């Protein structure tokens, strides 16, 4: 006999069937998402729509399974914390440690500064070091080299691609970073294909200067931002989605491209220089929202190197991102004919650097360059450098490019950063190995990575003859590591580095 309780239970179960619909829609193409403003098919195959309340400005549709109506978050636990250019990290383990010191690593993206901080503060993280080198003598086509430190040995490999060689972030969920370069049709100077480990993507035929990984749209998709000059000589950025090859072009400065978050809006901002080697202008490329709610480069803040460009050296060599003043926010350093320190602010990049550094030994520009009060005045220096986060504080390793390299010895300095007021504090000089009677070649590129796994950042310096030096920890003795057998007419004037790695 069916009891009343059983009957009621059966009725309840039947009634419950009414809620059996599984509201979990999965899109396959962008056009599948046609509900809401600026709807988008995300990497997890769910639809989002524009919602400025969410940090990512995206909210899942209401039929997105367990994440329905929640804010879209592209944070991941990186399979490889040694590689920059990835989406923001989840605050767990090493991610939590890093993001406590530098929240943008979990809010905006896993950038170069995050990798350095992870090597410094995550006891379980030991990386190999991979440096993609694009060396140019300003005359012939650049030489491309891949340099790898596996913890015991340096290895080098010449790369036959053209344009620029760069390490891109690993594909989502993968460990290995991807070495990317461009190829061009035979007998053509323009490049039309981006070739990287695991694929090739046709790109607009142009002269490519940069290839970088950044989660520009905060969509978690593998994204490369390429810098180039088009046929008319105009600088452009190409935002390329490496999962489907789609791309869009943005008009912006395109040289020395580097990414961080300077206005702390959870979207990565870029630093880029003019494509004119003689121009000292550089800009903050503020990641902004277009009218159609896509991401683009919005208002730019332009500033420039001071006067006194160094002959044979580009006015801007590159940019570095680090928390200089220990306020847990990224600051930016511009290296070139001088070293400019820009303390980030929530309003963006101030058009005037807080600190300008020039001279050799480096000093605040106001106190040197002939108009100052110090005796180390020396004009026409150009700088390469790298910021080196330390357990306490930050150091800048600055290489000077003398006005007359053939007769003047180069120098490599290590300067501790004073946070209040922001500026250089204790200055030390690295000791070069013997270079014989002639002055040692000037250093054109400086990289900071933990080579020996002691959780101190070491210094890797590359000179104009493509000789690689290293200095471990805070030691000031440079050691020759390896020399790249370049065929370029020496000396090389420009060394462009792109650094990545993988756990070892």
């Amino acid at each position, binding site marked *: 006999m069916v009891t009343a309780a059983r009957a009621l239970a059966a009725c309840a179960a*039947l*009634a419950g069937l*009414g*809620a*059996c*619909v599984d509201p979990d*829609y999965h899109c396959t193409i962008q056009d*599948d998402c046609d*509900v809401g403003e600026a709807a988008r098919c995300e990497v997890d195959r769910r639809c989002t729509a524009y919602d400025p309340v969410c940090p990512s400005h995206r909210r899942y549709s209401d039929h997105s399974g367990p994440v329905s109506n929640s804010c879209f978050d592209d944070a991941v636990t990186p399979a490889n914390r040694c590689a920059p250019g990835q989406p923001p990290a989840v605050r767990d383990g090493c991610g939590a440690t890093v993001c406590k010191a530098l929240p943008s690593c979990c809010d905006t993206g896993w950038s170069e500064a995050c990798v350095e901080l992870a090597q410094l503060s995550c006891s379980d993280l030991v990386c190999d070091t991979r440096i993609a080198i694009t060396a140019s003598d300003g005359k012939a086509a650049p030489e491309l080299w891949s340099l790898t430190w596996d913890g015991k040995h340096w290895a080098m490999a010449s790369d036959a691609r053209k344009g620029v060689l760069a390490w891109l972030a690993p594909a989502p969920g993968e460990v290995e970073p991807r070495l990317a370069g461009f190829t061009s049709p035979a007998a053509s100077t323009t490049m039309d294909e981006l070739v990287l480990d695991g694929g090739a993507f046709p790109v607009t035929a142009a002269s490519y200067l940069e290839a970088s990984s950044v989660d520009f749209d905060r969509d978690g998709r593998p994204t490369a931002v390429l810098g180039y000059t088009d046929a008319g000589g105009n600088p452009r950025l190409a935002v390329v989605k490496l999962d489907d090859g789609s791309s869009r072009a943005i008009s912006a400065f395109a040289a020395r491209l580097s990414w961080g978050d300077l206005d702390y809006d959870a979207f990565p901002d870029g630093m880029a220089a003019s494509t004119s080697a003689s121009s000292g202008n550089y800009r903050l490329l503020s990641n902004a929202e277009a009218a159609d709610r896509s991401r683009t480069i919005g208002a730019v803040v332009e500033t420039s190197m001071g006067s006194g460009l160094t002959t044979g050296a580009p006015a801007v060599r590159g940019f570095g991102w680090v928390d200089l003043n220990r306020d847990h926010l990224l600051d930016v350093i511009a290296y070139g004919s001088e070293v400019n320190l820009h303390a980030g602010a929530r309003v963006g990049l101030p058009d005037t650097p807080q600190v300008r550094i020039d001279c050799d030994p480096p000093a605040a520009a106001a106190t040197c360059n002939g108009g100052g009060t110090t005796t180390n005045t020396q004009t026409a220096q150009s700088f390469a450098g790298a910021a080196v986060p330390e357990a306490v504080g930050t150091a800048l390793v600055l290489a000077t490019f003398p006005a007359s390299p053939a007769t003047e010895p180069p120098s490599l300095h290590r300067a501790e950063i004073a946070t209040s007021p922001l500026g250089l504090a204790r200055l030390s000089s690295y000791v070069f190995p013997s270079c014989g009677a002639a002055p040692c070649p000037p250093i054109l590129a400086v990289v900071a990575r933990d080579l020996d796994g002691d959780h101190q950042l070491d210094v890797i310096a590359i000179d104009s003859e493509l000789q690689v030096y290293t200095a471990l920890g805070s030691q000031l003795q440079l050691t020759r590591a390896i020399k790249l057998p370049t065929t370029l007419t020496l000396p090389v004037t420009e060394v462009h580095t792109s650094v990545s790695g993988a756990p070892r």
Partner: protein
Amino acid sequence: MTRDRGGAPRRIATALVIAGLAAATAAHADAVDDHVARGRRLYDQGDFGHARDELLAAYQLEPRPELLFALGQVELQLGRFAQAIDDYQRFLATGPAPDQAALAQQAIGAARARLAEKPVAAPPPAAPPRPPRQPRWDDVDTGLAALGGALLLAGAGLEVSGYHHGRDHSGTLSQYNHRLSDAVVAEWTGAGFLVAGAAALGGGLLRWRLHLVDAEVQPIAAPRTAGVAWVQRW
């Protein structure tokens, strides 16, 4: 059935008296003899009524004392005990032989004893067992069951349809939204149908179980026993 309380001696005596009457009639009158002979034959056949008539006819023709004793026996067989006693006493009054008188006295005693017996009322026949009341499935029950089944089928169909619609992720999100809305409506409607169908079916079953009626009774013939039996029909 009445038992013969006189037993074998009385039957033997009766036979002797009638045999004696027969012999006497043969000697005196043919008519009396004929009556006595027929009376004897009828007595042997158990037709006591006609046997009495024959004996009375013979007595009227010739009032022999022995005929009184024979009449007493016949009356006894007919259950007319008072008449039997009267016949025996009249026989005794004729001064029969001692052995015959003793038989007559014995017969009188038996007749008196039977006369004194009260007729025993036969117990009323036991009422046939009342058959248990049985549920009756009627047209209303059939209607409810049919309605419930139809609703259950329709509900199940809507559920399946909604289930498949809800899991069809083809097309765009807006198309999916529409489809999902339809699926939700279908599933809730289906759930309603299922509940209603279950209620109708359950109501029908409950009504059948609670709707008790007397079992239908049909007489049936049995080869060895006669009686009644009840049969149950849906």
